[in-house]
């Protein structure tokens, strides 16, 4: 599958069989089908295997620090609301190191899409537990097994009334692509947590495991009911996939609320310095 977001002849640093390849394809297709221009997209990521994603998509990117994609993405969107901003990283990056930004970005309702590759493990650093690793799993570091309860990103996002909350599985490219498209089109903060097998370090939560331990929400499911969404988010015998929650009450996004755009819709870089106004203000200090 090649489109305008494909970079030819690139050495991709993921392991053969890694779920990230499907996500890469899914995202490129989604961006293409949304007819977005390469120059107007910014992929923002942290550090990790998932965070290498922007390297492989032919758009602008900001590959920043581990855990810090969301503040960067927020600022980019606030500086130039015309850009399509996607913040993408692993679950260790987004919910571990970056956990505080996760909860506060939801509060802000920045109009960006947050894609989290949830492989329930730290891939790049070779197999330590991540915030979503299941209790009991033995890892390179947690040799006696994980004891901390896994972080539930869906439940937390819903509890904070996040604007758009979805879960997907890397193995299902078509459905995942549709979810991502909805997320990007959605106005306000949207999160898509994507289950992704890590073939090198997570032998438990394999492709097969995810297949067997997930199901899709059916068409009758009403994602606008916060309580119902919460119930779904708590299910762990089989994890529900699809759009869990859309908060219809959140009408304005972060950028909408910025007074800087009240009288002037131009992105910041297109505005000149208003020297006269500054000088006038300074003259008032006499």
């Amino acid at each position: 599958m090649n489109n305008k977001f494909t970079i030819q002849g690139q050495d991709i640093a993921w392991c053969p069989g890694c779920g990230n390849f499907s996500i890469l394809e899914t995202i490129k297709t989604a961006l293409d089908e949304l007819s977005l221009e390469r120059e107007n997209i910014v992929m923002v990521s942290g550090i990790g295997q998932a965070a290498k994603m922007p390297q492989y998509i032919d758009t602008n990117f900001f590959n920043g620090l581990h855990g810090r994609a969301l503040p960067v993405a927020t600022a980019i969107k606030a500086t130039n609301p015309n850009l399509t901003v996607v913040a993408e990283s692993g679950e260790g990056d987004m919910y571990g190191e970056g956990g505080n930004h996760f909860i506060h970005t939801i509060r802000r309702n920045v109009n960006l899409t947050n894609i989290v590759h949830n492989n329930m493990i730290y891939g790049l650093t070779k197999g330590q537990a991540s915030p979503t690793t299941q209790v009991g799993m033995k890892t390179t570091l947690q040799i006696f097994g994980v004891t901390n309860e896994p972080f539930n990103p869906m439940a937390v996002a819903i509890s904070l009334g996040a604007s758009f909350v979805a879960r997907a599985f890397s193995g299902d490219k078509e459905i995942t692509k549709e979810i991502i498209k909805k997320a990007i089109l959605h106005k306000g903060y949207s999160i898509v947590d994507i289950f992704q097998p890590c073939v090198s370090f997570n032998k438990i939560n394999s492709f097969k495991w995810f297949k067997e331990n997930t199901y899709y929400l059916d068409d009758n499911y009403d994602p606008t009911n916060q309580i119902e969404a919460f119930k779904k988010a708590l299910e762990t015998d089989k994890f529900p996939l699809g759009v869990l929650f859309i908060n219809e009450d959140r009408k304005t996004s972060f950028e909408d609320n910025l007074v800087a755009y009240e009288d002037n819709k131009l992105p910041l870089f297109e505005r000149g310095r208003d020297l006269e106004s500054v000088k006038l203000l300074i003259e008032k200090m006499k």
Partner: protein
Amino acid sequence: MNKKKNLFSKDVSIVLCGKAGQGIKTIELILVHVLKQSGYNVFSTKEYMSRVRGGSNSTIIRVSDKNVKSMKNKIDILIPLDNQAIDHVSDRLSEDTIILGDKELFKDTKYEIISIPFIKTAKEIGNKIYENIVACGAILALFNNNLEILNEYITNKFKTKSNDIIKDNIAAAKKGYELGKELYDNSIIRIDIASNPEIKNDYFLNGNDTIGFGALMGGCNFISSYPMSPGTGVLTFLSEHSKEMGIVVEQAEDEISAVNMSIGAWYAGARALVTTSGGGFALMGEGISLSGVLETPTVIHLAQRPGPGTGLPTRTEQGDLEVALYSGHGEFPRIILAPSSIENTIKLTAEAFNLADKYQSPVIILSDQYFLDTFYNTKNLNLDTEIQNHIIKTEKDYKRYEVSDSGISKRGIPGFGKGLVRVDSDEHDEEGRITEDMGVRVTMTDKRLKKLDLIKESIIDPIFTGSQDYDTLVIGWGSTYNVIKEALEEIDNKKISYLHFEQVYPISNKVKPYLKKAKNIIIIENNATAQFSKLLCISTGIEIKNTILKYNGIHFYQEELVLKINELAGDK
């Protein structure tokens, strides 16, 4: 009764002291404004505790026939507003200090107090809260000034309030004035300092304002910060002007978010500022390193207060030079500016944005609580600054890190032009893509470090004061400028000259000859370990052995500097 000095014809230091929440700030604001508008040279600064109510805070208002820009330790007139106030400043009292207070509060004090019934008077007008205005009126009377400007000020300040409130305040001012006038008329206290109507046209602002205006002058249109004293003032300033000036203002959830937001904002074409203090800055090290490796500019205002840890949140110190200089892992250039005077700081701050943009590097503005909270009137604000915008419109084949002779690559932003802007905190190639090629690693490190040579070509010259023919060279940096300068003026020794740094890093090669020439170098720093002397040692190879250091949380006073400089300049 001792024969105290009761006539002030050249210079007077008036100190107001009371509890947090008692409204000293209000009195200060009113008095400095009214005095300055009446044509007096006014200097003012304050010291306060880290609490919202209670404790003891004080403000000094110094009025002089010269344009003074620093303060003395000694208090001429103390106005204690609660019964702990006198104790709080007791070591600044002299035989000559006049204490003007409400006797009601000082039933059994050992100090002699000239009583003015502030409280009773206020209550008579209708509310104890008018106490402040009564005091303002009384103080103005000591200057034999009239009430016009005060009344105007009151009318303006309370214009959104009811007419009754305005009326009561004006009445309070008048009552206070009458009480003060009695003292003046009876020659108990007279402040007969000459006023000069031209001073009305002077600028009157504090350090915090200069940094705020400097940011606006520098085209700042984005600020993301987390509140922390004394850095918060600049955030509030920009928020207040956010609508009219089109500034994106966001209170971040923490300092890490703040600095990363600011880098994201620069990346997308904003001119962003972060303001913080030492503890918050310590959390930004990784972000500064990010700015270094991405070559995405960032400007951080680091408002110093005494550390380590939480330290003394509302006090002053110059103890964070080294953390500003070295925080962030790895090796990359940076620039550090240290505001020194009200006159220069608007330009200096505006330049910070130009420098960051030009050199695609972090720039740190290193102020402190003392600088931020200090006002004086001045005729000359250096506003001579242009926006140098270094963003380019990209072409299709744009490479963010194209290697160039100077080390600087053209900086594009996403969505402006046909090119793609790729930046990566991993070591990267010219296109901004991750690489582990050792050759590219060296090229990119050299490219980044080379910028420091370029930066060194246009370092802001230190300010030299005095004769070229000196034995002793006094060195200072940042907020100590005026107090050292005025101390040296008082010492008035032709063999002592003064070199003051507004840019503390990098240090220009031009500095070495100044140091070599001196028989004796004295460095003055508001910290305990003489951090700037170490930086000068690295930069020039010259060790400085004479230090005047202060680290009790308070800035320098003129008298102590006079004493210590004389000591060190003398015993050679």
